[in-house]
Protein backbone atom coordinates (compact mmCIF):
# COMPACT_ATOMS: atom_id res chain seq x y z
CA UNK A 1 0.00 0.00 0.00
CA UNK A 2 1.37 3.42 -0.96
CA UNK A 3 1.10 6.84 0.63
CA UNK A 4 -1.48 9.03 -1.09
CA UNK A 5 0.71 12.13 -0.78
CA UNK A 6 4.25 10.94 -1.57
CA UNK A 7 3.82 7.31 -2.80
CA UNK A 8 6.27 5.94 -0.18
CA UNK A 9 5.25 2.81 1.69
CA UNK A 10 2.12 3.53 3.74
CA UNK A 11 1.87 2.64 7.43
CA UNK A 12 -1.77 3.55 7.98
CA UNK A 13 -4.87 3.16 5.87
CA UNK A 14 -7.82 5.49 6.44
CA UNK A 15 -10.81 4.00 4.64
CA UNK A 16 -12.99 6.94 5.65
CA UNK A 17 -10.73 9.21 3.58
CA UNK A 18 -10.03 6.62 0.91
CA UNK A 19 -6.35 7.20 1.64
CA UNK A 20 -3.20 5.69 3.09
CA UNK A 21 -0.22 7.59 4.46
CA UNK A 22 3.44 7.12 5.37
CA UNK A 23 4.58 8.38 8.78
CA UNK A 24 5.57 11.98 7.89
CA UNK A 25 2.54 12.48 5.66
CA UNK A 26 0.16 11.10 8.30
CA UNK A 27 1.57 13.42 10.98
CA UNK A 28 1.15 16.32 8.53
CA UNK A 29 -2.40 15.20 7.67
CA UNK A 30 -3.43 14.83 11.32
CA UNK A 31 -1.99 18.17 12.41
CA UNK A 32 -3.51 19.93 9.40
CA UNK A 33 -6.94 18.43 10.16
CA UNK A 34 -6.75 19.71 13.75
CA UNK A 35 -5.46 23.13 12.68
CA UNK A 36 -8.25 23.49 10.12
CA UNK A 37 -10.84 22.54 12.74
CA UNK A 38 -9.47 25.25 15.04
CA UNK A 39 -9.41 27.99 12.41
CA UNK A 40 -12.58 27.11 10.47
CA UNK A 41 -14.68 26.75 13.61
CA UNK A 42 -13.08 29.87 15.17
CA UNK A 43 -12.14 27.89 18.28
CA UNK A 44 -9.37 30.20 19.47
CA UNK A 45 -6.84 32.70 18.20
CA UNK A 46 -3.06 32.54 18.24
CA UNK A 47 -2.81 34.95 21.19
CA UNK A 48 -5.24 33.09 23.44
CA UNK A 49 -4.00 30.81 26.25
CA UNK A 50 -5.55 27.37 26.01
CA UNK A 51 -6.21 25.12 29.00
CA UNK A 52 -6.04 21.51 27.77
CA UNK A 53 -7.87 18.89 29.82
CA UNK A 54 -5.64 15.82 29.75
CA UNK A 55 -6.43 12.33 30.98
CA UNK A 56 -3.27 10.45 30.01
CA UNK A 57 -5.14 8.82 27.12
CA UNK A 58 -4.30 8.92 23.42
CA UNK A 59 -6.74 11.67 22.46
CA UNK A 60 -5.96 14.36 25.01
CA UNK A 61 -2.20 13.83 24.82
CA UNK A 62 -2.31 13.84 21.01
CA UNK A 63 -4.29 17.08 21.14
CA UNK A 64 -1.81 18.70 23.53
CA UNK A 65 1.10 17.54 21.35
CA UNK A 66 -0.48 19.05 18.23
CA UNK A 67 -1.31 22.36 19.91
CA UNK A 68 2.25 22.70 21.20
CA UNK A 69 3.67 21.77 17.80
CA UNK A 70 1.44 24.33 16.09
CA UNK A 71 2.77 27.00 18.46
CA UNK A 72 -0.23 27.62 20.70
CA UNK A 73 0.29 28.69 24.32
CA UNK A 74 -1.07 25.86 26.43
CA UNK A 75 -1.28 24.53 29.95
CA UNK A 76 -2.42 21.05 30.87
CA UNK A 77 -5.03 20.20 33.48
CA UNK A 78 -5.11 16.69 34.92
CA UNK A 79 -7.87 15.64 37.28
CA UNK A 80 -6.95 12.80 39.66
CA UNK A 81 -10.20 10.83 39.77
CA UNK A 82 -8.96 8.39 42.40
CA UNK A 83 -9.80 5.28 40.36
CA UNK A 84 -7.05 3.05 41.79
CA UNK A 85 -4.24 1.78 39.56
CA UNK A 86 -5.89 3.26 36.46
CA UNK A 87 -5.70 6.79 37.84
CA UNK A 88 -2.16 6.23 39.13
CA UNK A 89 -0.96 5.14 35.68
CA UNK A 90 -2.83 7.99 33.99
CA UNK A 91 -1.26 10.60 36.24
CA UNK A 92 2.22 9.11 35.88
CA UNK A 93 2.01 9.15 32.07
CA UNK A 94 0.55 12.65 31.95
CA UNK A 95 3.28 14.01 34.21
CA UNK A 96 5.95 12.25 32.13
CA UNK A 97 4.52 13.73 28.91
CA UNK A 98 4.57 17.26 30.35
CA UNK A 99 8.02 16.93 31.92
CA UNK A 100 9.59 15.54 28.76
CA UNK A 101 8.35 18.54 26.77
CA UNK A 102 8.78 21.17 29.50
CA UNK A 103 5.05 21.96 29.59
CA UNK A 104 3.06 23.46 32.45
CA UNK A 105 0.65 20.99 34.04
CA UNK A 106 -1.87 21.50 36.84
CA UNK A 107 -2.68 18.31 38.73
CA UNK A 108 -5.88 18.40 40.79
CA UNK A 109 -6.35 15.27 42.93
CA UNK A 110 -10.04 14.97 43.78
CA UNK A 111 -9.41 13.19 47.08
CA UNK A 112 -7.13 16.04 48.12
CA UNK A 113 -9.56 18.77 47.04
CA UNK A 114 -11.73 20.94 49.27
CA UNK A 115 -14.50 18.34 49.39
CA UNK A 116 -12.08 15.40 49.48
CA UNK A 117 -14.29 13.24 47.28
CA UNK A 118 -12.88 10.92 44.61
CA UNK A 119 -15.16 9.21 42.08
CA UNK A 120 -15.36 5.73 43.72
CA UNK A 121 -16.43 7.28 47.03
CA UNK A 122 -19.17 9.33 45.34
CA UNK A 123 -20.44 6.33 43.37
CA UNK A 124 -20.47 4.13 46.48
CA UNK A 125 -22.28 6.69 48.64
CA UNK A 126 -24.91 7.69 46.06
CA UNK A 127 -25.23 4.30 44.33
CA UNK A 128 -25.00 6.11 41.01
CA UNK A 129 -23.04 4.89 38.01
CA UNK A 130 -19.46 6.15 38.41
CA UNK A 131 -19.55 7.68 34.89
CA UNK A 132 -22.43 9.94 35.92
CA UNK A 133 -20.54 11.33 38.92
CA UNK A 134 -17.34 11.53 36.86
CA UNK A 135 -18.96 13.73 34.21
CA UNK A 136 -20.40 16.11 36.80
CA UNK A 137 -17.09 16.38 38.66
CA UNK A 138 -15.05 16.87 35.49
CA UNK A 139 -17.29 19.68 34.24
CA UNK A 140 -17.12 21.44 37.62
CA UNK A 141 -13.35 21.22 38.07
CA UNK A 142 -12.62 22.07 34.44
CA UNK A 143 -14.83 25.17 34.65
CA UNK A 144 -13.26 26.20 37.96
CA UNK A 145 -9.69 25.73 36.76
CA UNK A 146 -10.28 27.67 33.55
CA UNK A 147 -11.96 30.51 35.44
CA UNK A 148 -9.39 30.65 38.26
CA UNK A 149 -6.49 30.50 35.80
CA UNK A 150 -7.91 33.24 33.57
CA UNK A 151 -8.05 30.99 30.51
CA UNK A 152 -10.52 32.13 27.83
CA UNK A 153 -10.80 28.63 26.40
CA UNK A 154 -10.80 25.01 27.53
CA UNK A 155 -9.90 22.29 25.01
CA UNK A 156 -10.84 18.63 25.43
CA UNK A 157 -9.78 15.57 23.44
CA UNK A 158 -13.23 14.45 22.30
CA UNK A 159 -12.76 12.79 18.91
CA UNK A 160 -14.98 11.97 15.93
CA UNK A 161 -16.05 8.64 17.43
CA UNK A 162 -17.06 10.35 20.68
CA UNK A 163 -19.08 12.92 18.77
CA UNK A 164 -20.75 10.32 16.55
CA UNK A 165 -21.68 8.17 19.57
CA UNK A 166 -23.02 11.20 21.44
CA UNK A 167 -25.03 12.21 18.40
CA UNK A 168 -26.46 8.72 18.09
CA UNK A 169 -27.53 8.78 21.74
CA UNK A 170 -29.06 12.23 21.41
CA UNK A 171 -30.96 11.28 18.26
CA UNK A 172 -32.19 7.95 19.65
CA UNK A 173 -33.76 9.77 22.56
CA UNK A 174 -34.48 13.04 20.72
CA UNK A 175 -32.61 15.06 23.28
CA UNK A 176 -33.47 18.38 21.66
CA UNK A 177 -31.62 20.64 24.16
CA UNK A 178 -28.50 18.45 23.82
CA UNK A 179 -28.76 18.40 20.01
CA UNK A 180 -28.93 22.19 20.10
CA UNK A 181 -25.66 22.26 22.04
CA UNK A 182 -23.78 19.52 20.17
CA UNK A 183 -21.16 21.73 18.58
CA UNK A 184 -17.36 21.65 18.39
CA UNK A 185 -17.31 25.10 20.00
CA UNK A 186 -19.53 26.08 22.91
CA UNK A 187 -19.53 29.75 23.70
CA UNK A 188 -20.06 30.66 27.36
CA UNK A 189 -23.68 31.13 28.44
CA UNK A 190 -22.64 32.59 31.80
CA UNK A 191 -19.84 34.98 32.86
CA UNK A 192 -18.26 32.21 34.95
CA UNK A 193 -18.07 29.78 32.04
CA UNK A 194 -15.32 29.83 29.39
CA UNK A 195 -15.40 28.78 25.74
CA UNK A 196 -15.17 25.00 25.34
CA UNK A 197 -13.69 23.50 22.21
CA UNK A 198 -13.15 20.04 20.70
CA UNK A 199 -10.38 20.36 18.11
CA UNK A 200 -10.34 16.60 17.42
CA UNK A 201 -14.00 16.45 16.40
CA UNK A 202 -13.05 15.48 12.83
CA UNK A 203 -10.34 12.95 13.69
CA UNK A 204 -11.17 9.33 14.49
CA UNK A 205 -9.89 7.23 17.36
CA UNK A 206 -7.76 5.27 14.92
CA UNK A 207 -6.19 8.53 13.79
CA UNK A 208 -5.44 9.84 17.29
CA UNK A 209 -4.07 6.45 18.40
CA UNK A 210 -1.91 6.28 15.27
CA UNK A 211 -0.68 9.85 15.79
CA UNK A 212 0.20 9.11 19.43
CA UNK A 213 2.03 5.94 18.45
CA UNK A 214 4.00 7.64 15.69
CA UNK A 215 4.92 10.59 17.90
CA UNK A 216 6.19 8.29 20.66
CA UNK A 217 3.53 9.42 23.12
CA UNK A 218 3.36 6.96 26.00
CA UNK A 219 -0.37 6.99 26.72
CA UNK A 220 -2.59 4.84 28.91
CA UNK A 221 -3.79 1.92 26.79
CA UNK A 222 -5.89 0.41 29.58
CA UNK A 223 -9.50 1.45 29.72
CA UNK A 224 -11.10 2.99 32.78
CA UNK A 225 -12.40 -0.02 34.79
CA UNK A 226 -15.73 1.80 35.20
CA UNK A 227 -16.34 2.04 31.45
CA UNK A 228 -17.32 -1.63 31.02
CA UNK A 229 -20.85 -1.75 29.68
CA UNK A 230 -20.99 2.02 29.19
CA UNK A 231 -23.73 3.06 26.75
CA UNK A 232 -21.23 5.09 24.74
CA UNK A 233 -19.30 1.91 23.94
CA UNK A 234 -22.46 0.21 22.66
CA UNK A 235 -23.05 3.12 20.29
CA UNK A 236 -19.41 3.05 19.21
CA UNK A 237 -19.62 -0.64 18.41
CA UNK A 238 -22.70 -0.11 16.23
CA UNK A 239 -21.08 2.84 14.49
CA UNK A 240 -17.88 0.90 13.86
CA UNK A 241 -19.85 -1.90 12.21
CA UNK A 242 -21.59 0.66 10.04
CA UNK A 243 -18.26 2.30 9.24
CA UNK A 244 -16.80 -1.05 8.24
CA UNK A 245 -19.59 -1.57 5.68
CA UNK A 246 -19.78 2.06 4.60
CA UNK A 247 -16.47 3.87 5.15
CA UNK A 248 -16.90 7.56 5.92
CA UNK A 249 -20.28 7.11 7.63
CA UNK A 250 -19.15 8.45 11.00
CA UNK A 251 -17.56 11.55 9.53
CA UNK A 252 -20.61 12.23 7.36
CA UNK A 253 -22.98 11.62 10.29
CA UNK A 254 -21.25 14.26 12.41
CA UNK A 255 -20.32 16.83 9.77
CA UNK A 256 -23.69 16.63 7.97
CA UNK A 257 -25.44 17.03 11.32
CA UNK A 258 -23.36 20.12 12.06
CA UNK A 259 -24.04 21.68 8.66
CA UNK A 260 -27.64 20.65 8.11
CA UNK A 261 -29.14 19.17 11.28
CA UNK A 262 -27.87 21.18 14.22
CA UNK A 263 -29.11 24.56 12.89
CA UNK A 264 -32.66 23.17 13.05
CA UNK A 265 -32.27 22.70 16.81
CA UNK A 266 -30.26 25.85 17.47
CA UNK A 267 -33.33 27.86 18.43
CA UNK A 268 -34.40 25.38 21.10
CA UNK A 269 -34.83 27.30 24.34
CA UNK A 270 -32.47 26.61 27.25
CA UNK A 271 -34.22 24.50 29.86
CA UNK A 272 -33.55 27.07 32.59
CA UNK A 273 -31.80 30.36 33.22
CA UNK A 274 -28.54 30.01 35.08
CA UNK A 275 -27.91 31.77 38.38
CA UNK A 276 -25.07 31.36 40.88
CA UNK A 277 -24.64 28.31 43.10
CA UNK A 278 -25.16 29.29 46.75
CA UNK A 279 -22.32 27.05 47.86
CA UNK A 280 -19.54 27.50 45.28
CA UNK A 281 -20.67 30.46 43.17
CA UNK A 282 -20.45 28.59 39.88
CA UNK A 283 -23.39 28.69 37.42
CA UNK A 284 -26.41 26.77 38.68
CA UNK A 285 -29.91 25.98 37.46
CA UNK A 286 -31.28 26.06 41.02
CA UNK A 287 -29.91 26.93 44.44
CA UNK A 288 -26.99 24.55 43.99
CA UNK A 289 -25.00 23.54 40.92
CA UNK A 290 -24.91 19.89 39.83
CA UNK A 291 -21.57 19.33 41.55
CA UNK A 292 -22.66 20.78 44.89
CA UNK A 293 -25.94 18.86 44.75
CA UNK A 294 -23.93 15.68 44.35
CA UNK A 295 -21.58 16.57 47.21
CA UNK A 296 -24.59 17.34 49.42
CA UNK A 297 -26.17 14.01 48.48
CA UNK A 298 -22.99 12.17 49.48
CA UNK A 299 -23.10 13.95 52.85
CA UNK A 300 -26.77 13.04 53.36
CA UNK A 301 -26.27 9.40 52.39
CA UNK A 302 -23.25 9.04 54.65
CA UNK A 303 -25.15 10.57 57.58
CA UNK A 304 -28.06 8.16 56.95
CA UNK A 305 -25.65 5.22 56.85
CA UNK A 306 -24.12 6.25 60.18
CA UNK A 307 -27.59 6.73 61.70
CA UNK A 308 -28.64 3.23 60.61
CA UNK A 309 -25.47 1.50 61.77
Amino acid at each position, binding site marked *: *MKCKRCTDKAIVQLRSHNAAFCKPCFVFFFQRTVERAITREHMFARDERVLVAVSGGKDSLALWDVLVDLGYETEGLYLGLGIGAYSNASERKTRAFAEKRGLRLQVVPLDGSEDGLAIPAVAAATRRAPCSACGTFKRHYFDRAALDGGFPVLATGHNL*DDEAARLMGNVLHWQVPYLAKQLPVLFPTHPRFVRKVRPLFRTSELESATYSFLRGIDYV*VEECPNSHGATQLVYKDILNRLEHSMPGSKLAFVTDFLSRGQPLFAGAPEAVDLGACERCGMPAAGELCGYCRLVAEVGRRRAQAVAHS
Partner: protein
Amino acid sequence: MQVRLEPQGKQLTISGRRRVGAIVQSLGIIAGTVMVIRGDELLTDDEFVDDTDSIELRAVISGGVW
Protein backbone atom coordinates in the same frame (compact mmCIF):
# COMPACT_ATOMS: atom_id res chain seq x y z
CA MET B 1 3.21 -16.14 15.23
CA GLN B 2 2.60 -14.62 18.64
CA VAL B 3 -0.31 -12.19 18.86
CA ARG B 4 -0.84 -10.00 21.92
CA LEU B 5 -4.21 -8.31 22.37
CA GLU B 6 -4.14 -5.02 24.28
CA PRO B 7 -5.50 -3.75 26.58
CA GLN B 8 -6.87 -7.21 27.43
CA GLY B 9 -3.34 -8.54 27.86
CA LYS B 10 -4.29 -11.77 26.03
CA GLN B 11 -1.62 -13.78 24.24
CA LEU B 12 -2.49 -16.00 21.26
CA THR B 13 -0.55 -18.23 18.89
CA ILE B 14 -1.54 -18.35 15.22
CA SER B 15 0.30 -20.63 12.85
CA GLY B 16 1.48 -19.82 9.35
CA ARG B 17 2.25 -16.72 7.34
CA ARG B 18 -0.80 -14.50 7.05
CA ARG B 19 -1.98 -11.13 5.88
CA VAL B 20 -2.76 -8.57 8.60
CA GLY B 21 -6.34 -8.13 7.37
CA ALA B 22 -6.94 -11.89 7.55
CA ILE B 23 -5.55 -12.07 11.11
CA VAL B 24 -7.78 -9.24 12.30
CA GLN B 25 -10.83 -10.76 10.60
CA SER B 26 -10.14 -14.25 11.96
CA LEU B 27 -10.20 -12.86 15.49
CA GLY B 28 -13.61 -11.28 14.92
CA ILE B 29 -12.23 -7.77 15.25
CA ILE B 30 -13.70 -4.94 13.18
CA ALA B 31 -11.04 -3.42 10.91
CA GLY B 32 -10.12 0.09 11.98
CA THR B 33 -10.70 -0.55 15.67
CA VAL B 34 -7.16 -1.76 16.33
CA MET B 35 -3.63 -0.76 15.41
CA VAL B 36 -1.46 -3.67 14.31
CA ILE B 37 2.04 -3.17 15.66
CA ARG B 38 5.22 -5.15 14.89
CA GLY B 39 8.13 -3.83 16.92
CA ASP B 40 8.12 -0.08 16.36
CA GLU B 41 6.18 -0.16 13.08
CA LEU B 42 2.51 -0.09 12.17
CA LEU B 43 1.21 -2.58 9.63
CA THR B 44 -1.49 -2.08 7.02
CA ASP B 45 -4.04 -4.77 6.15
CA ASP B 46 -2.22 -5.92 3.01
CA GLU B 47 1.07 -6.76 4.73
CA PHE B 48 2.18 -10.26 5.64
CA VAL B 49 3.14 -11.42 9.11
CA ASP B 50 5.55 -14.35 9.27
CA ASP B 51 5.12 -17.39 11.44
CA THR B 52 8.10 -16.31 13.56
CA ASP B 53 6.86 -12.71 14.11
CA SER B 54 5.30 -11.21 17.22
CA ILE B 55 2.61 -8.59 16.77
CA GLU B 56 0.37 -6.52 19.00
CA LEU B 57 -3.25 -5.72 18.23
CA ARG B 58 -3.95 -2.59 20.25
CA ALA B 59 -7.56 -1.42 20.54
CA VAL B 60 -8.13 2.24 19.77
CA ILE B 61 -11.64 2.51 21.22
CA SER B 62 -12.08 4.32 24.48
CA GLY B 63 -15.06 5.69 26.26
CA GLY B 64 -17.29 6.03 29.22
CA VAL B 65 -17.94 9.69 29.92
CA TRP B 66 -18.89 12.50 27.59
